[in-house]
């Protein structure tokens, strides 16, 4: 299964959740990836606000958002009244999701944009709200042919590796073999976020919860 496929012929705007921006920042080539994608990129204002928070400032995600916004690679959009209705429903009903995910889904629902969300609960919620439309994964942006062409094979693969290694990007289980084939077994061993890591590699590297969130790699 190819994970660039669902975005290849898709030209409508994409709405990015915070988790996607975290991955793009961690990969070290986020700006170039966004520039290469043929779609317009929308970031809900609520997501931007979340990244303004101290924890995201510390991790550098806010500075990244600032730079892609200044470069005109994304449009920061506030919720329209109609989208607000969906937003309120998603944050207040039980089970609920957080403000950023809810805003991403709400904009996608009304404008018929495609949301990009990796979080499992966020994806489930999006599928229910978008009546059958499936949100895209960050991985699909990383493996978009336009991105591979712009970055070149080597950097595109290295970006994917850093997103997994540094950003702990979540990927669909079905993409596991393809991703390992791309980055190689050796580098895959560094990526403890990969689904069923232990089955695959027998033993694991330990995850240093407190020190792992180090500065992102140079592009």
């Amino acid at each position, binding site marked *: 299964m190819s994970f660039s496929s669902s975005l290849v012929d898709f030209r409508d705007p994409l709405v990015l959740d915070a988790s996607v921006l975290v991955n793009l920042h961690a990969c070290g080539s986020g700006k170039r990836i966004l520039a290469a994608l043929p779609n317009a990129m929308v970031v809900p204002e609520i997501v931007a606000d979340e990244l303004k928070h101290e924890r995201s400032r510390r991790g550098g995600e806010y500075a990244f958002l600032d730079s892609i916004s200044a470069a005109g690679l994304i449009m920061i959009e506030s919720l329209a009244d109609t989208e607000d209705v969906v937003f309120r429903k998603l944050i207040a009903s039980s089970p609920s999701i957080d403000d950023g*995910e809810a805003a991403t889904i709400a904009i996608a629902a009304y404008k018929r944009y495609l949301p990009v969300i990796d979080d499992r609960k*966020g994806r489930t919620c999006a599928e229910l709200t978008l009546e059958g439309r499936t949100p895209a994964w960050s991985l699909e942006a990383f493996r978009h042919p336009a991105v591979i062409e712009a970055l070149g094979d080597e950097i595109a693969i290295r970006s994917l590796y850093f997103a997994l290694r540094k950003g702990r990007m979540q990927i669909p289980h079905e993409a596991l073999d393809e991703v390992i084939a791309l980055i190689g077994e050796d580098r895959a061993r560094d990526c403890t976020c990969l689904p069923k890591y232990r089955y695959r590699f027998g033993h694991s590297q330990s995850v240093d919860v407190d020190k792992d969130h180090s500065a992102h790699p140079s592009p």
Partner: protein
Amino acid sequence: MADLNEIGAQEMGRRLRVARENAGVRQGEAAQIIGMSRPTLVSIEQGARPVRIQELQQLARCYGISVNALLRREAVHTDLVPRFRKAQQVENTHTVEAVQLFNNLIKADVELENLLGIHRRRNYPTARGIHHGDVLSLAEKHAVELRGWIGIGLGPISDIFSLIEFGLGIRLYQRRLASSSKVAGLFTFDEQVGACILLNANHPLPRRVQSAGHELGHFFGTRETTEVLREDERFLSRDDRYANAFGRAFVSPADSFAERFRQLKEITGRTTRRLIILLAHQYNISRQACVLRLEDLGLVKKGTWEWFEHNGGITDQQAREVLGSAADRTDPVKSDADRLVSHRTSLMAHAVWKRELMSEGQLAELLRVGRVELRAIVDQIELEQDESDEFLKLLG
């Protein structure tokens, strides 16, 4: 909207007030930031005027929280900061930091437990009250009563923390505060969340044992009062003098402690450093606490500790010479406190994430960690789970 109506204006107002007070924002400031008059905000917080969703979004942003954290059914809205403030316990930035941390730990713990259907058993004796009588005698009497109620006799306590957490069902947190913080411990009680204690994990084990005993005194004697224990406290209230005495009496009960001292002194003939080292070790208390307790009980002269201090003290090296490797007690709490999120909370966070009870964003906000940090926590447990799944397969 159904969502806001469902909660009700009064409850929404309460949540907004708690959020504002926890964030340390005054009504006037908040009203000004969102372009509303102060009386309007007052009436929203009192539940007299329903809040509009746009206002709610602005207020949430002003308080540094999400609207979802204000609205979601499972969220817990504890009001520790205002409560400690009311009790005039919040005096400086370190205390504010400790109270906010305490509040956040409790909120996260309770919400995660509720989501997972975990019921924390409370095994609380009735609080005694200390309004009448000499506090020191009351403390001695109550400490023995509590030991009797728990059924642990009068001997040394090997693990006071487990006793507090599992024996009594008190929420106990041991986390590191700022290195210059003088806060040693906090205590609060609330019907919804129960009794809770926070200990400063920067402190060495014997010091934390002492602080735990002190907070236990508040739990048993003055439960309804919130409390901050500081290292540099100079003017002690009646409650604090009681709690100090209770703590000492609880960890080293007069009768058994005196008996052990006499037994050792019969051998050594006098109060030697070796005797103090052995006695303190048996009771898991510091050498200083040991000597001061002996002074309190009239078993050594007043000023004995001072004498030791002026004559080279009782050093760790001397303790190692007497106890060997047993002098270096293991303190697993330190490594747990070094983690961004404790082991137990990490496990619960992973479970709610796995069951899709909370999203990554919700959990990151609840635990006050970055998203990548949260992913690392989840990944670590996923790895361990893969391994246990394999093990179970092998058994099957």
